[in-house]
């Protein structure tokens, strides 16, 4: 009898199972390696798309910058289209405007946009352009930004010890006047200690004897302030040679503001007003260009954010506006009286902590306290780098960055 061998069919099944197992193993290995390569390929394409989006954002940035440079020196006109500020930029001092971006000839599928951002209080001359780009069909988006120096407001001259009161004419006190003019003091206290600078400075003294030079007597007669009006001491300075001021040479304006023009200050003031800055906001408004002939009754400026008040030639058309007796101004006050002393006759003011600049004399001055402060000119002194040509648009070195802020 032939013995029964039940294991023979099992040999075949085992062989088949081993073969199938090997095939599955080989298939899985191939599949996972293919998937890994596919992932690498996708990552590589993603990287390529991201790079292209970044390059498109750079193109948008360059286009917006060229637009600004082309529009200079009237670049302010570009900032009329208000837009939402980029993330992280909040507060009334920030002005954000949409920029025009020309399409790039080599990137027809890219959507480019740019926003110019500037701080209207601290640095209106530094614009940061935020550019972004997205490429249709690639789901990629990139952002780039860079800052520019824009000739918005000219640099103001540096003055070692600015006078409390700067005039372009002579001064006289009215009968019963209550005046106080205090220079910068060495200890920083108002109207006490040793004077660190002149109390009064004039750019025009009447040459009474017509000899071409200005004597001390002529200067003292011109700057006729009593010692009680000068409790902090300080000198009274003026030119040593006779000068003409007609037509009006704006010597007082130029001595403190340098090349800053009416238009520049007017544009700055309007931009702050349009952006919603007021004396009550944080930070407060710092530049006031006033065309109204009405008297000024509002206290403005703080030690941290001093203000500049400019009463324009229009405001001074008939007579320059007075300042309320209880008004306190921290900063600078300029009155464009156009070398016409009569426009300032009998002038009155409250307290000015900083500097008062009058483009004429101050005859029959009735009241006011002028206390010189080191920070008095800070409202319009912008932080221009030393040696820069402030008449050209220039990129700020090291300010380029990419991605979200």
């Amino acid at each position: 009898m032939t013995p029964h061998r039940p294991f023979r069919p099992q040999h075949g099944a085992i062989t088949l199972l081993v073969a199938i197992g090997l095939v599955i193993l080989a298939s899985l290995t191939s599949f996972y390696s293919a998937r890994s390569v596919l992932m690498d390929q996708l990552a590589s394409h993603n990287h390529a798309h991201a790079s292209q989006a970044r390059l498109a954002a750079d193109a948008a940035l360059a286009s917006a910058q060229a637009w600004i440079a082309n529009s200079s020196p009237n670049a302010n006109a570009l900032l009329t289209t208000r837009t939402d500020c980029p993330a992280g930029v909040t507060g009334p001092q920030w002005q954000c405007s949409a920029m025009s971006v020309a399409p790039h000839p080599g990137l027809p599928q890219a959507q480019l946009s740019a926003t110019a951002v500037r701080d209207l209080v601290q640095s209106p001359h530094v614009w940061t352009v935020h550019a972004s780009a997205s490429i249709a069909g690639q789901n990629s988006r990139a952002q780039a930004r860079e800052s520019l120096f824009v000739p918005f407001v000219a640099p103001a001259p540096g003055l070692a010890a600015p006078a409390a009161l700067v005039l372009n004419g002579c001064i006289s006190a009215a009968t019963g006047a209550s005046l106080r003019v205090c220079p910068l003091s060495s200890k920083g206290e108002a109207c006490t200690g040793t004077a660190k600078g002149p109390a009064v400075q004039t750019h025009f003294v009447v040459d009474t004897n017509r000899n071409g030079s200005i004597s001390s007597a002529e200067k003292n007669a011109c700057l006729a302030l009593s010692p009680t009006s000068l409790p902090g001491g300080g000198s009274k300075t003026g030119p040593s040679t006779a000068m003409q001021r007609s037509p009006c040479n704006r010597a007082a304006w130029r001595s403190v503001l340098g090349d800053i023009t009416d238009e520049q200050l007017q544009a700055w003031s309007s931009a702050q007003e349009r952006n919603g800055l007021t004396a009550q906001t944080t930070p407060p408004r710092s530049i006031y260009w006033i065309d109204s002939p009405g008297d000024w009754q509002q206290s403005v400026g703080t030690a941290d954010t001093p203000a500049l008040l400019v009463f324009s030639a229009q405001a001074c058309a008939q007579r320059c506006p007075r300042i309320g007796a209880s008004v306190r101004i921290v900063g600078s006050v300029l009155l464009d009286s156009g070398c016409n002393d009569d426009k300032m006759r009998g002038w009155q003011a409250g307290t000015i902590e900083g500097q008062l600049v009058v483009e004429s004399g101050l005859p029959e001055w009735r009241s006011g306290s002028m206390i010189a402060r080191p920070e008095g000119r800070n409202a319009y002194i912008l932080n221009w780098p030393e040696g820069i040509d402030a008449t050209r648009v220039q990129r700020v070195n090291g300010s380029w960055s990419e991605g979200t802020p």
Partner: protein
Amino acid sequence: MALIEALIASAVLGIGLVGATQLTLKTLHMASQSRQHTVAQHLAQEAMDCLHAQALPCPGQEAIQVQGVRYTRQTRSTPRGDGLINDLQVSVEWVASGAGANTRLEWHSSASAIPLWVGVSSP
């Protein structure tokens, strides 16, 4: 019987291995293409960085051999808009392995020609 079983197992193994080999070959081809594309991207990025820097003279055309593949790189900078902007173009061309056809990658961007203030102070 044993012969039939062995034949069936061999057939299953053979078919499976042929499929796996095909997949592996395809994977190798894809990996090679992906690598070449990545190399081309790096070469394009390098040239774009050179054009953006505007400091060094960037070669207009050059041939570069990387891992047995010959890449031809071309760079071009064209002024636009009163010379305040330079349009940049970088192209990298290579012969893809296996396909035998030329593959091309082309990138565009722009760089500002506005002068850079390099003083020590900043706002």
